């Protein structure tokens, strides 16, 4: 899932073993998701789909995977193709883990293999139409996993819990005292520093940002978000945080915001209508969740 997982459950003293069991169950659920959807595991469903790219062979998929793909398709449609789960092959040029890039002249050929419309779905399952194509659900699975862990806590009867999965957070209810959960949004340029604190009650916050994953070209910093149309990284917000009732929706809106440029990002965020915070490359905060936003000048009584 690309980061640490942390579960917090507030419970009665005689529920300790039940809470531990709920955490173990949530962990198992996340491991199961990773086993199915990780592109780093050769035995995952995603790797199997990718291996069969261009062969004309179908990979059978379960209802949950089909629903997750359906969500990706909706997001692809709504984002005018900016969110594209097939854009992962562009990383063959852009190596964000090492902060360097390869042969940029390969981008046109790679872009030709990118495109959700080249993903075929039928009763038999899913197939990638072109050899060399890759499907990567990393952009949604972590957030979905956080929601799924939260749901497993609710099903186990724990309605005061917090799930943090690599920076994405789901609050199950409030604290037992009735007070909301307090969570912090990190400063992208100094991740140990909390820039904004948020109160969550039965809601989720997801953050997309470049943090330490970026490339500098000619002194210009580029985020790890890749425009599937051009193949180039997008040089916009350092991070975008969204609050929604599901982490999946919050993460999706945040990711697409990071893929937009300039005013388009603001338009997208305003259209979504969810509380948002955008932190620019130089640390400036904008959006309804920004400390200086007029919306925060409210009467709490």
């Amino acid at each position, binding site marked *: 899932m690309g980061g640490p997982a942390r579960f917090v459950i507030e419970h009665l003293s005689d529920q300790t073993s039940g809470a531990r069991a709920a955490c173990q169950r949530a962990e198992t659920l996340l491991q199961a998701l990773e086993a199915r959807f990780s592109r780093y595991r050769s035995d995952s469903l995603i790797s199997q789909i990718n291996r069969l790219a261009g062969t004309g062979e179908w990979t059978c998929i379960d209802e949950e995977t089909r629903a997750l793909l*359906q969500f990706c398709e909706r997001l692809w449609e709504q984002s005018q193709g900016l969110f594209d789960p097939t854009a992962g092959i562009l990383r063959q040029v852009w190596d964000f883990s090492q902060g360097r890039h390869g042969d940029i002249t390969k981008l046109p050929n790679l872009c030709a293999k990118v495109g959700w419309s080249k993903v075929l779905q039928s009763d038999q399952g899913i197939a990638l139409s072109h050899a060399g194509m890759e499907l990567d659900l990393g952009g949604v699975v972590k957030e979905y996993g956080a929601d799924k862990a939260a749901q497993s806590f609710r099903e186990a009867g724990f309605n005061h819990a917090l799930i943090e999965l690599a920076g994405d957070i789901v609050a199950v209810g409030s604290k037992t005292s009735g007070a909301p959960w307090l969570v912090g949004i990190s400063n992208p340029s100094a991740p140990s520093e909390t820039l904004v604190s*948020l*109160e969550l009650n039965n809601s989720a916050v997801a953050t997309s940002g470049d943090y330490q994953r970026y490339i500098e070209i000619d002194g210009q910093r580029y985020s790890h978000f890749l425009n599937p149309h051009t193949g180039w990284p997008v040089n916009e917000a350092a991070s975008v945080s969204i609050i929604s*009732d599901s982490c999946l929706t919050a993460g999706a809106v945040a990711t697409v915001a990071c893929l937009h440029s300039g005013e388009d990002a603001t338009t997208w965020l305003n259209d*979504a209508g969810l509380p948002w915070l955008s932190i620019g490359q130089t640390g400036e905060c904008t959006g309804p969740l920004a400390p200086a936003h007029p919306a925060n000048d*409210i009467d*709490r009584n």
Partner: protein
Amino acid sequence: MAVIERGVKNAHSASTIKQSPLVRTLGAAVAALPAYQNTYADAPPEFTEVGLRYSHYSEDSLSEDKFIAGARGRYDIDVTQLWIEAPIGSNWSIAVDVQNDSMSGASPWFVGTQVDGQPGVIMSGASIYDNRVEVGATTRYFWADGNAGFNVTHSKEDDYEALAMAFDVAWNSADNARTWSASASTSNDRVEPVNGNIPVFIDQEDIDTASVYFGVSQILSSTAIVRIGLGYTFSEGYLSDPYKLFDARPDEHSRTALSGGYRKFFPEAQGALQIDYRYYSDDWGTDSHTAEVAWHQSFDRFALTPYLRYYSQREADFFSVIADLEQDFYADDFRLSSYGAITVGLRSTVQIGDWQMEGQLERYESDNDWGLYDGEAAPALVNFWRATIGISWRFD
């Protein structure tokens, strides 16, 4: 005005987060995922839906051995329904429903004695024709934890006019596993029977009705849900049937109904078991049990639902096969007798793109011997067929 502590934002909860069209579009896809099927917030319909449905209801003719005079052919009713439902903004929806019923045929007028001493039915004479038009409008508000609707319906036919209003609300528990629902409705009906094949003895009468309902549904697991509800209805006014010769009913009627249901989805079979039960009791001495079992089977874009319903009713205190005119209240209406009934039916739907086709066929048969309660058999008990076809279209 107090300024909040710098950097700490007001608490954000699912119930305060608005649903923009973009988020609702994504939300529809989110709701299909297993992790959210128990939890996703209420939201208006994502699409506008327009539908047209036609039903034909046909009662069997009265059998020769129970017939004394009049016309043996009973009611045929053609029902045509047109509806539209559309979201308005991010929190509202509106629905308009127009229905036309065309009725023809004869109905039981009274029960007398045949030459062999057995009761027999005197039917209204030649076929009666009537047309009813009903128009209803519902507006509904959705918030994260529930929804509330307000409905106004007007119905008009040659001899009957009704205006009804209803308010309903449903809200979900914090964990979304439980939904409470409540409704209240009122109607004012005006009866102006028309002198035709049979004489009528009133010019104009009114009926006022008020109903309340409270129910709760509980998700038991990711594949099972149970619900229970209690309803109460009170009517006052002219509650007799003006088209029956011997029919004098009390001018007040209190009814209570307790209902429950259970749904269990079987993922391996892509099917769901549906069990429903309803107990009804009123202050006319009638009580009844209704039990229904159905199996909903999905085949990708096609679904079939066979169902079986059993009904049993105890007769009203003032019912007798041949009306006892010595009593203050009396009636020979078969609908107030003791009997049992079985309905067998099949519903199907086919989804093709944004279009959905539906079809339904059911057979209803009733018999005094099938009931759980004692009581003499009413000769006019009815059997009927009902067939329905429909088509609906969803668009952005």
